[in-house]
């Protein structure tokens, strides 16, 4: 009886310690089910984490000493391509790849980690749910609620204007100096968004074919960067995944805000007008804006800046 009581007590200690956790525990039962069904696409998502971290770390370590950005970009792209062609099969920890970046941007890392878990688990539910109707929607909405409940690290689901991404004194430094990197990262985001739309197709055969086509299309986008991707603006969830946006209206703003925050980090990393000593402080300031529903609040959702390339938009185009 004493032992039982002790176990119970320790259990309480653990439960109490994770009530506000940004570590998602316990994991949803569907967790990483997407990878069982679509291992190639899942590995690519793991590779994106690796690729993001690698680019960020090298930009930070070489900050202020890159005399030839085009050459620098070419070399890292070659390394990233190797990772994409031979992607990891498990999720990588960013501090194993990018310790300097992790140290410099703590709040943003917390926000990205928490948000990426939501991205993953939504994919897992959409890929594995037997119920393709209200039951599946309930599951995704429950994940969304759990995500938003962790207030200190939940990016707001209020729509923001593009000025959140492009309206700062350091904005656009990344895309102006590293156009191929920028297209690569927007291609990552496009791939993630399109998977949501693919997974809402009515039959399993259609879903499997759509995921395979999106994966193939992703590599086409990278075939001759930056021209092969051709994004004129950051891909937006509601534009690239309209069915998904209609079914889960809270998620597109949260995902787009996350993607804009990625672009902000990229700009901070390469901007010559942000001193190295200011990076941590500016990262926290930008993170607070991502959490704040009132910062850069849009009067209407949808920016209309969809992808103007050759690869169409949304599952309906397949």
């Amino acid at each position, binding site marked *: 009886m004493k032992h039982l009581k002790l176990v119970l007590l320790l259990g*309480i200690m653990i439960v109490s*310690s994770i009530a506000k*956790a940004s*570590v998602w525990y316990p994991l949803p039962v569907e967790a990483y089910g997407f990878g069982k069904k679509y291992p190639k696409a899942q590995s690519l998502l793991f590779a994106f984490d690796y690729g993001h971290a690698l680019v960020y770390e090298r930009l930070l370590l070489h900050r202020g000493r890159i005399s030839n950005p085009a050459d620098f970009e070419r070399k890292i792209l070659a390394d990233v391509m190797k990772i994409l062609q031979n992607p990891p099969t498990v999720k990588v*920890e960013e501090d194993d790849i990018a310790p300097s970046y992790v*140290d410099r941007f703590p709040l943003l890392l*917390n926000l990205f980690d928490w948000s990426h878990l939501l991205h993953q688990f939504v994919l897992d539910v959409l890929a594995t749910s037997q119920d393709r109707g209200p039951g599946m929607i309930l599951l995704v909405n429950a994940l969304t609620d759990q995500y938003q409940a962790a207030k200190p690290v939940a990016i707001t689901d209020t729509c923001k204007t593009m000025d959140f991404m492009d309206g700062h004194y350091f904005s656009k430094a990344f895309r102006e100096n590293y156009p191929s990197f920028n297209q690569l990262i927007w291609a990552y985001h496009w791939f993630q968004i399109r998977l949501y739309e693919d997974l809402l197709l009515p039959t399993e055969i259609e879903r499997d074919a759509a995921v395979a086509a999106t994966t193939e299309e992703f590599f086409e986008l990278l075939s001759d960067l930056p021209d092969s991707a051709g994004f004129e603006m950051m891909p937006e969830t509601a534009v690239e995944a309209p069915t998904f946006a209609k079914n889960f209206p809270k998620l597109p703003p949260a995902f787009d805000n996350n993607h804009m925050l990625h672009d902000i980090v990229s700009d901070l990393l390469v901007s010559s007008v942000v001193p190295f000593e200011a990076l*941590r402080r500016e990262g926290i300031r930008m993170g607070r804006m991502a959490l704040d529903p009132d910062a850069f609040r849009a009067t209407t959702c949808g920016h209309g800046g969809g992808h103007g390339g050759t690869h169409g938009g949304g599952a309906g185009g397949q």
Partner: protein
Amino acid sequence: MRMYLLSIVIGIVATNVSAQELKDYREFTLAVRDTLTLGIPSTMGGTVTVEAKLILGEPAIPTPAVFDFPLADESKFIRNFVDRIYLNDGSYLKIQGEEIPLTCIFLHGQDNRYSGKDDPLAPDFVLRVTIPANDYSCVGPINPGWPRTSERRELWDTSLSYVVRDPTIMLPADITVQYRRNIFAAYLMDLGN
């Protein structure tokens, strides 16, 4: 809802905790020193100075979580409590001129008053204070998803930890500074200001 259920479970197991005790335990957390200057003796020579500044924010849990550790004599027990309070922006651990954001206070207290202790040197309370940096959700110290979701058992990579044996003076002792997973013993520097 989750916190409500948690409160019910706590109520069942730790039935003797009064509202006043919960308030007292929370007061311990609120009384943690808000500025510290620490010295770390270096084998390279000299002393590395580390500064900490804390600006208290909202509680991460409504009330401290309490649990009793039973002793052989069933009428006696050691009471433990855990509390978490967020720190606001502007809180920092300053190392080599860099202000690393401190993000919360994690306090694990031990209340010995119900243990039957008769040694006057044994303190009524022992408070183990950990102040992590960079964890805005205040989840640690152990990664609850480990080992399935991470190879690292310890969630926090940078933190300040110490023990308090007397809440009336809140004197930090046995201080350690963890910096990017390296741990250093430190001492309190009384600069007289």
